[in-house]
């Protein structure tokens, strides 16, 4: 007669068995390894900084003092390069046939008699070259810049007095410290690492149900709750470990590591809940894959939305992974503290509880009716 078996021993036995099976599922092992390596490599290949400066090519004569003063007084962002001729300026702008290594975005060509004509009050035309990629506001700023020089040279005052101004930047002032694309994509990778586990876990659960091995487990001294606990712990652990590994590879724990770990753990619970649902609902591999995809796409949307400027739409903010993405973005990119991310973590926790409860219920129903 066998000894009385403890619940933790049963749960651990199921986890050990699942890990052994997972290690022999070549498809998931390869996909997981390739995924982590690919995301890690792709991250480090992305630009690590944002080039906020524009170089302006200048062709002028007799206005060296004015431009020297302008160069000294400009804030970070604009640099002026002098050219000897209009042809040289146009060649630097990429208009001369041969493509320069680093073409200029903006060029200003002042006519040789610009000073004399302005001083005499006669009209003069300054040619402003702008690349199609230059933002519209900068194009307009260049035109204003030329106009200001003309006013300064002519000695005429500006038609309006220069108003005193106080600039208030809403949110954190990121001038000179823009978030690079690499930072923006970090939460997308974190969510991807977690979501991949939805497939792996749902596949493991579906295999147990479809092969009816779960019934063999449940006529032993193990209970439905042991089986569910083992799947939940394994799924959460695997998703969490992979997400942490990926974020370690892409060097994401420099800021607020505890907040990030907390967010990833909750994210792992979230995808485990969805994995249990997908694994229980699918009747075969294709159906399981379908349900996995059905959960994966909405989970990805908030992470993708971070790549685009502006505030996310309301419907994006109610998606389950929004709290996870916002926490990862704010903690890793902006070094936000607990007070800033707690509302997002709270929302994420609520979604975790809901997803895990539904996953638990669906799987329990499934194994009881086999």
């Amino acid at each position, binding site marked *: 007669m066998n*000894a009385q078996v403890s619940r933790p021993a049963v749960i651990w036995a*199921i986890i*050990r068995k699942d890990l052994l099976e997972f290690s022999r599922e070549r498809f998931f092992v390869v996909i997981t390894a390739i995924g982590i390596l690919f995301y890690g490599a792709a991250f480090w290949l992305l630009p690590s900084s944002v080039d906020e400066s524009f170089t302006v090519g200048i062709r002028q004569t007799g206005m060296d003092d004015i431009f020297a003063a302008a160069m000294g007084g400009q804030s970070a962002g604009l640099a002026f390069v002098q050219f000897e001729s209009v042809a040289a300026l146009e060649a630097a702008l990429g208009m001369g046939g041969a493509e320069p290594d680093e073409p200029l975005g903006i060029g200003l060509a002042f006519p040789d008699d610009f000073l004399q004509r302005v001083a005499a009050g006669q009209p003069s035309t300054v040619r402003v070259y702008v690349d199609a990629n230059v933002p519209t506001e900068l194009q307009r700023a260049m035109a204003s810049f030329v106009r200001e020089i003309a006013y300064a040279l002519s000695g005429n005052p500006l038609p309006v007095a220069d108003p005193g101004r106080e600039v208030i930047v809403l949110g954190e002032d990121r001038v000179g410290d823009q978030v690079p694309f690499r930072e923006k994509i970090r939460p997308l990778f974190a969510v991807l690492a977690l979501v991949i586990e939805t497939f792996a876990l749902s596949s493991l659960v579906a295999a147990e149900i479809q092969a009816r091995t779960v019934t063999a487990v449940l006529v032993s001294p193990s209970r439905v709750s042991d089986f569910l606990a083992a799947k939940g712990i394994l799924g959460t652990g695997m998703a969490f470990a992979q997400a942490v590994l990926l974020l370690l590879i892409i060097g994401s724990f420099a800021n607020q590591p505890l907040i990030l770990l907390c967010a990833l753990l909750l994210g792992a619970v979230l995808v485990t809940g969805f994995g249990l649902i997908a694994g229980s609902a699918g009747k075969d591999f294709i159906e399981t894959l379908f349900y996995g995809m059905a959960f994966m796409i909405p989970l990805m949307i908030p992470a993708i939305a971070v790549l685009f400027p502006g505030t996310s739409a309301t419907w994006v903010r109610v998606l389950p992974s929004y709290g996870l993405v916002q926490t990862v973005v704010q903690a890793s990119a902006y070094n936000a503290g607990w007070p800033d991310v707690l509302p997002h973590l709270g929302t994420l926790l609520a979604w975790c509880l809901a997803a895990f409860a539904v996953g638990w219920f669906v799987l329990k129903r499934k194994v009881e009716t086999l």
Partner: protein
Amino acid sequence: MSEEAIRVEGVSYAYGDVKAVDNVSFAVAQGEVLGFLGPNGAGKSTTIKLLTGQMRPQSGEIAILGMDVAKERDKIQGRIGVCFEEKNLYLNLSARENLNFFARLFGIADFDPMPLLRRVGLADRAGDRVKGFSKGMQQRLMVARCLMNTPDILFLDEPTDGLDPVSSQAIRRVIEEESARGAAILLTTHDMDEADKLSDRVAFINDGKIAVLDTPENLKLAHGQRTVRVRIREHGEVREQVVPLDAADTGDQLKAVVGAEGLLTIHTEEATLEAVFISLTGRGLQA
């Protein structure tokens, strides 16, 4: 036969409006093999699920080893072994790993799978993954799995269905050994010959109800027909004649055929369980 290992009293279970098990009662003593026979959909598998605690009866009571299966499931599970009709093994694990995993679920310390694997003829394949096993080898491993906790009761659901003669023989030998050890065995099968040889008693289940429950011998005597079949050559043609042994003029008929010229063969025929089943239920086992 001694005390009861299984007692079922007025148990019913329905899937919606369909009664899978309808007011079934029976008992199995320790060391007894009860053959549970019936066509597909008769209620055999549902009965096993109810007895093994996979489902709860909607009415009636089930006692396993004197314990209520609904209330003392945890105590019962460690003392039973179940061999399912489906080959529900972990295909990516080896035979040894499959047994070791279930040994951990049963809390068996220092479990050595090799004696069990030797018993079912799989010792030389212990380290091979189960997905490379034939159907017969998988079934033998299933039998080994259900024996690992030295169970007091064995539930065997179609254990030899579709197997080669070697695998079937190996499993039948295990059933006999387990019965001799004192385990109560509930055996469902389509194979009437197997049931006849292995079972101490057989129950015919049809439409969720037990039609009859008795020893194979009694059933054949009570419901079957014993006959003598003779073949005689007459005028160049072979004629067959069947003489019932229970008829009033059996003696006269036998004298006539035995004395006939051209007698070729004489065979006595006993009733089969299948014939008894058909006569009792009006349907065959494969229906």
